[in-house]
């Protein structure tokens, strides 16, 4: 757990919470950032760092659904070690059921790495995103600067802003997760 000085939750979890303390969890809450399998439109997911978490829930939901719209995940992490759910994502891709995953690493280039090694940019989005005419369902989740950058790039592809669903979790030290 990384403590963010201006964070809402992490200073409490890192500094205050003790083993044995009782924690009350609530949720899941919210009906906006939700995707339901059964849609014919292709799915485009864009994740910055731990923003992959709600998107992974969508991919798990998709994996168990009988009707699978084609899906692409563009996932930006700092280093390979920071990639959350790496093995599970690899497994989902191996199922060969119409899911493609594109990783980008912003702070290292491991040996033999064939993914991207830069922050998300227009060329990357152009290569990964579905053409606008396919009217993809789009979900972007990550730190605020990442989400703003990704949403701007998608609008640059002529995606309608209203069609791009975003979820921000505040700043966590820069674009790229």
């Amino acid at each position, binding site marked *: 757990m990384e403590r963010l000085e*201006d964070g*809402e939750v992490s200073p409490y979890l890192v500094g205050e919470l003790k083993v044995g303390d009782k924690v009350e969890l*609530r*949720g899941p*809450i*919210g*009906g*906006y*950032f*939700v995707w339901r399998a059964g849609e014919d439109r292709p799915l485009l997911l864009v994740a910055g760092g731990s923003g992959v978490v709600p998107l992974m829930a969508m991919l798990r939901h998709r994996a168990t659904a009988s009707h699978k719209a084609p899906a692409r995940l563009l996932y930006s992490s700092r280093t390979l070690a920071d990639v959350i759910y790496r093995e599970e994502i690899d497994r989902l891709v191996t199922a060969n059921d119409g899911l493609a995953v594109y990783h980008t690493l912003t702070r290292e280039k491991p040996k033999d790495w064939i993914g991207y090694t830069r922050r998300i940019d227009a060329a990357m989005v152009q290569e990964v995103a579905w053409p606008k005419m396919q009217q993809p369902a789009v979900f972007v989740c990550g*730190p*605020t*600067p990442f989400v*703003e950058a990704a949403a701007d790039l998608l609008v640059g592809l002529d995606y309608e802003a*209203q069609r791009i*669903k*975003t*979820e*921000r*979790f*505040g*700043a966590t030290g820069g674009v790229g997760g």
Partner: protein
Amino acid sequence: MQTSEMKLDGNAIAGLLGEIFAVEMTSAQGTCASCGAVNEVGRVDVYIHAPGTVVRCPDCEQVLMRIVRGRGRYWLDLTGVRCLELAED
């Protein structure tokens, strides 16, 4: 940290709104009283670092809602919202 980096969105107040309203609010559509833009609550701008929560229109940045909770009560200022459109459960 810059103000722009402190911006969250309506998803961040799903729980708070869930305490106040009986129906799911992030997929409700709000009409901005200032510019008339219609946005789902999930995609509006939210600032939680103010005293209370300030919700702004993503199109014109005017205040849509202010929500304050304290001493066992809620104060809800909806001056900036002309209309809320909600789905039946």
